[in-house]
């Protein structure tokens, strides 16, 4: 339950430049609604980024839930030096990288499964294309992959990616370039293999 003063803080916070601030204050005194409004907007992004790094929907969900829990535990120490979203993504990536290094790599895509796929434009063909793309992403170093996905999936600015990854903008540009170049090489091989099939 939250007092009138806290309620006011929530509504003030929501219209201000840092809408999370009021929600955090209210959440810290146990306002469940404020916590839900604080976390819900980031749910899909976090699961998507975790999926991009871990390659499994189930693991991604677990990692995103663990992210929220760790963020809630650390909420009293959140100083707002970076955006709340960047802070959450940083926690999520730390979890994903540590899980990734502790577990076996994702099972490779079985060739037999590809035989079941029809033409490139069919639903099966599209699904297969997505799986192959995920596999290509999986071949990138985890930090580089994360940077690319933050850019292309989450629309993060170069500054935001730098903030999350602890890199300067020059390094962000360089990592994005290297990621794209690797995927371009992969695409080239895919095209050549497709022509030989």
């Amino acid at each position, binding site marked *: 339950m939250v007092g009138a003063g806290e309620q006011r803080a929530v509504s003030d916070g929501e219209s201000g430049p840092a809408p999370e601030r009021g929600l955090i204050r209210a959440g810290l005194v146990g306002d469940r609604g404020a916590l*839900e409004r604080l976390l819900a907007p980031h749910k899909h992004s976090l699961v*998507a980024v975790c999926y991009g790094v871990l390659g499994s929907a189930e693991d*991604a*969900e677990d990692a995103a839930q663990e992210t*929220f829990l760790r963020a809630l535990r650390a909420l009293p120490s959140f100083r707002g030096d970076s955006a709340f979203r960047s802070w959450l993504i940083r926690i999520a990536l730390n979890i994903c990288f540590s899980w990734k290094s502790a577990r076996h790599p994702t099972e490779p895509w079985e060739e037999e499964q590809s035989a079941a796929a029809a033409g490139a434009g069919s639903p099966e063909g599209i699904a297969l294309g997505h799986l192959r793309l995920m596999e290509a992403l999986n071949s990138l170093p985890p930090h580089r992959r994360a940077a690319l996905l933050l850019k*292309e999936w989450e629309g993060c600015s*170069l500054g935001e990616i730098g903030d999350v990854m602890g890199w300067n903008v020059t390094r962000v540009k360089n990592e994005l370039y290297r990621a*794209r170049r690797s995927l371009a090489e992969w*695409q080239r091989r895919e095209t050549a293999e497709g022509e030989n099939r």
Partner: protein
Amino acid sequence: MNCERVEQLLSEHLEGFVSEREAGAMAAHLGRCPACRRRQEEFTTIRSSLRTLAQQLPLPESDIDRRAIDCWLAERAVSNAGWRR
């Protein structure tokens, strides 16, 4: 301007961070270099494929935020009860 620099600029161009002068030099290079034109096409295709993939991720709608909140509030309740004892 060599091919490697043009490739870097092609990537930066996707972020909209290429100066007019560099964009001019890049365009001139692309006009005479089929390999870099191919790379440009590949970068564009990759961006588009990644964005399509993002829209079609097999991610279930779940209540992970609520579950995390439940868990944290329960942890706090236990911790507060212990502290009061």
